[in-house]
Structure formats: C-alpha cells, structure tokens
C-alpha cells in the first residue's frame, strides 16, 4: 500500500534532501538511484555574484517538491518563506523548519505549532519538522499538519535513532504519517525506523556527502523498502521459554 499524504500517493517511502551535494549531477543521479518521489529544497537569495543553475532543473517533474522554511527562526518568518515558496509556482507543500539554535539546530516545537496553524490557514500542505514530544505532535495534528516529522537525532550527526523510544510513541499514538527526519546516517538506520512502524524516512547529509552519493541513495531506497516490508510482515517477537512447571496457570489445567 502506498503512503498517502494530502491526497497524493507515494510508492517510495524514502524522502531525499537536496542540500550539500557537491554537484548537481550527483543530485540528479541520487534522485534517480533512490527512486524517491519527494525531495526537499530551500529558498535562498539569489547569489548575484555567481550565477548558480537552478536546482529545479535537476529534479524530475514527477517528483514532489517540499520547500523547507530553513532560515526561519520563528513562525512569522516561516510564513514569509512559505509565501515566497508558493510564489515560485512549484506547489504549496511546505516542510516547516523553525530553528532558533545555531549550536544544535534543534527545532522550536512551539513556533512550529504556531507556524503550522498559520500555514494551514493559508492553504499550505504542512509537514512540520519537530522534536518528538507527544503533546506537541497532538497539537500539530490538531492544527492540520499532513504528517509529523520527528527528528531521529541531531541534523547531520549520523547518529540514527537516538530518539527511538519517543518516535515509537508517536507512531503508536498519532494517526497522521510519521516521517523520521534528521540524523539518519546509514541505510540500516532507515530500515530500523521503518521496521518499528515509521511511515517514511528522510535523509540528506549522508547521501550528499557520501563518497558515491548515487550508490548510497540507492541503498537508502532499498533499506527503506526492506524495513517497511519487515514491518508489514509482523516480525515474530523473541520469546522466552516456559519451564515445564506452570506455577501461574497450572491451576487452570488441573482436573
């Protein structure tokens, strides 16, 4: 079954970020190799000195563009960026990223809730990036978020699922898709997130800075799919063996 977000279906549950790639060619190959159907991009002032090629040309038209609000330090700035992104004509899917912390790049959950409310009110499809907190996740859903995107660990740290137990709680309690974002450094970590029931994973730095980005992108695509299949197969739980004697329930079988 595909992943459904805001009426769109995604058959590939690996999302790719497009930042930090050494070359646009790397990016294009990585998108193709992973089979990803949704990528994040950012909005920046045009570099007036160096004429950069526009990133959109390297992204196939069939891939959904998710514009992030990176740079926003509060909800108002996120809204401004979202409006600019919409004016670009590439759709109105926004990944809310509100970070007022240059040391750890941790998202501001409260501003993210505010931003979600504001953007949903203006008709954006909102995918908020957040620190896994169940109360906040509930507020985001209430505010109209299409998914919730908890961080696995700090952006760019490759530490995988440091927040695993708390992500699991979101998976169990929140009814919109859970997309694990940030800190996914290895395909095995992506598989791990999918095995425990995440709906999708997003990786960027790992792929962009790999020796061979396209290969790693392909690996991520495969690992994500493998993890999803494993989850659907209902992994057998490891069981301890019972003794021959049954002190707790033996009485139920006595004549």
């Amino acid at each position, binding site marked *: 079954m595909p992943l459904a977000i805001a009426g769109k279906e995604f058959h590939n549950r690996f999302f790719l970020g497009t930042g930090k790639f050494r070359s646009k060619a790397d990016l294009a190959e990585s998108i193709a190799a992973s089979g990803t159907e949704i990528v994040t991009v950012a*909005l920046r002032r045009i570099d007036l000195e160096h004429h950069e090629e526009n990133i959109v040309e390297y992204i196939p038209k069939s891939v959904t563009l998710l514009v992030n609000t990176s740079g926003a330090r509060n909800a108002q700035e996120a809204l401004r960026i979202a409006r600019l992104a919409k004016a670009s004509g590439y759709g109105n899917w926004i990944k809310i990223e509100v970070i007022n912390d240059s040391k750890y790049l941790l998202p501001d959950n409260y501003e993210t809730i505010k931003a979600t409310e504001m953007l949903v009110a203006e008709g954006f499809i909102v995918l908020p990036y957040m620190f896994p907190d169940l109360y906040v996740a509930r507020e985001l859903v209430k505010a109209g978020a299409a998914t919730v995107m908890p961080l696995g660990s700090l952006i760019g740290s490759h530490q995988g699922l440091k927040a695993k137990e708390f992500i699991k709680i979101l998976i169990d309690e929140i009814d919109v898709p859970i997309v694990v974002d940030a800190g996914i450094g290895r395909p095995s970590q992506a598989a791990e997130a999918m095995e425990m029931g995440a709906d999708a994973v997003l990786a960027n730095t790992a792929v962009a800075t790999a020796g061979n980005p396209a290969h790693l992108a392909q690996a991520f695509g495969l690992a994500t799919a493998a993890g999803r299949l494993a989850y659907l197969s209902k992994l057998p739980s490891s069981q301890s063996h019972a003794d021959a004697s049954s002190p707790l329930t033996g009485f139920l079988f006595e004549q």
Partner: protein
Amino acid sequence: MNITLNGRPQEINPAMTLRNLVEQFCKNPAQVIVELNGTIIKNEQWGSRKVQDGDTLELVNLVGGG
C-alpha cells in the same frame, strides 16, 4: 538611485523596471521570486513595476536544502 538588494546597498538606474532588474541580475529569470518591500510581486507585474529610492528588494529562488 539606491535600493537594498538582497541585503546589500545597490545603485540602480531609476528607469529600470523590475523585469529589467531581474534580467540583469539573474541568470534564470523564470525561476526568480520577487519580494519588494515585504510584498511578493507576481511575474506579470514585473514589466510595469518600477522601484523607488530606498526600496528593499529580495530576489530569491529554490536551492538545495534538507
């Protein structure tokens, strides 16, 4: 005439329309988003719109990001 362009002071010819400016400074005018004094200006209006002295102009576009 002086405006602030992408955060920096920039001297420009007062006769220039937004379209002229975009074409002068950007390689890919089609990809540019224009925000003048905090308001987004649509593509269709670039030809008719001129900037004033002291205006703040932002020319942005989509780039790689996580």
